[in-house]
């Protein structure tokens, strides 16, 4: 079973040379740590920066330079700042090549829910609805099951949706899956995880064809 860093590490392999990437809060943020150093990638944060670098050295934090998670950051050569309308112009206009975000639920039809638990938690959707409605290439990073052990890969989402039919790929602690017209197609197993364990943890239709290899990470 993968830990959060393991999930991030596997997703990092989906990041290709020349990609502009938007990383959501949580596991997605960790992806930046594992991207190969021999490819060129720029990270966009929807609050208005392209070309994000690592966290600043202690004492060099600038309150005017943060990411969408409100963390202090730095910028790399070639970076730029811009306003929120321009930022979402980049997103809506599909100039960002890859969006990686977390989810509370994903359905076999590609629906995603990640912003609200009625009566319990309402923090808001932030930029997630814009991102999932616009991006051509969306990868969800999440645990396969929730804290109560229930599957997060469902036939239909039970929580209020963030977007419809938009998720293309999911990387969990157990598996890599593709969303197809027929359901979740199992592409890879996490190291040491059996097909049975994945089947058990997946409520939605799971399509298993041929041998399912273990992930390389």
């Amino acid at each position, binding site marked *: 079973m993968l830990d959060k860093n393991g999930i991030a590490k596997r997703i990092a392999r989906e990041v290709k040379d020349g990609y502009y990437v938007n990383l959501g809060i949580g596991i997605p943020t960790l992806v930046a740590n594992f991207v190969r150093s021999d490819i060129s990638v720029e990270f966009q944060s929807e609050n*208005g920066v392209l070309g994000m670098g690592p966290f600043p050295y202690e004492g060099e934090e600038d309150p005017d330079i*943060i990411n969408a998670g409100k963390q202090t950051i730095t910028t790399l050569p070639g970076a730029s700042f811009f306003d*929120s*309308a321009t930022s979402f112009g980049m997103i809506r206009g599909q100039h960002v090549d890859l969006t990686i975000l977390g989810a509370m639920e994903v359905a076999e039809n590609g629906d995603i829910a990640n912003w609200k638990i009625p009566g319990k938690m309402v923090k808001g*959707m932030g930029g997630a609805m*814009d991102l999932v*409605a616009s991006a051509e290439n969306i990868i969800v990073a999440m645990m396969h099951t929730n804290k109560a052990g229930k599957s997060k890969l469902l036939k239909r989402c039970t929580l209020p949706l963030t977007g419809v039919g938009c998720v293309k790929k999911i990387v969990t602690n157990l598996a890599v899956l593709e969303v197809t017209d027929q359901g979740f197609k199992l592409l890879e197993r996490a190291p040491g995880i059996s097909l049975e364990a994945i089947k058990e943890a997946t409520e939605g239709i799971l399509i298993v064809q041929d041998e399912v290899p273990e992930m390389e990470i």
Partner: protein
Amino acid sequence: MIRKTVADAQEALRGVQDGMTFMLGGFGLCGIPENAIAELVQLGIKDITCISNNAGVDDFGLGLLLQKKQIRKMISSYVGENDEFERQMLSGELDVELTPQGTLAEKCRAAQAGFPAFYTPAGYGTEVAEGKETREFNGKMYVLEYAYKSDFSFVKAWKGDEAGNLVFKGTARNFNPCMCGASDITVAEVEELLPAGSLDPNEIHIPGIFIQRIFQGTLYEKRIEQRTVRKRD
């Protein structure tokens, strides 16, 4: 050159009244109009509707207005990190309208640029689109969203000049430019107010035509929400 300078926040906020709708720039606590917020607290204006991406934290930013129960309605994309907010929302004291962040930005920009409405894919098929007009373009579904109408915009810039021209710094830019000229009156507070001619006309982010009043703010705290650092090797 048309002068937009006023002495201070007090003069800049002349005309604000109970029940008005305000746009406030900033993302989290970054780039928020600290002086305007402090003055709104001071004035005790009530029943405000605030259009702002976030609602501050418990004891800073718009949280200060929430503490005093001056806000009737928040229009935001993300309202986490604020216990008092959650309490007021759950108890029904506070009306909350959550809007996708890109939609929020464009509803401001539409007001600035004279567009009555626009089509965006964000929120299609979700509760955000309930009761809204939708339409297909090139095989994709879009939601019709309307420009905001508001009484005052309060924005914060890094540098500004007497003519109202603004320059922002880093990600403190965020929603501030989109809100300029998007209300009846736009009030800009800046860290450094310069004579006209001090800013290179090529480097101005927002021309003064969008600004009615500008003043030099004081005592910027610029609180950091998530101080993340790395160790030196």
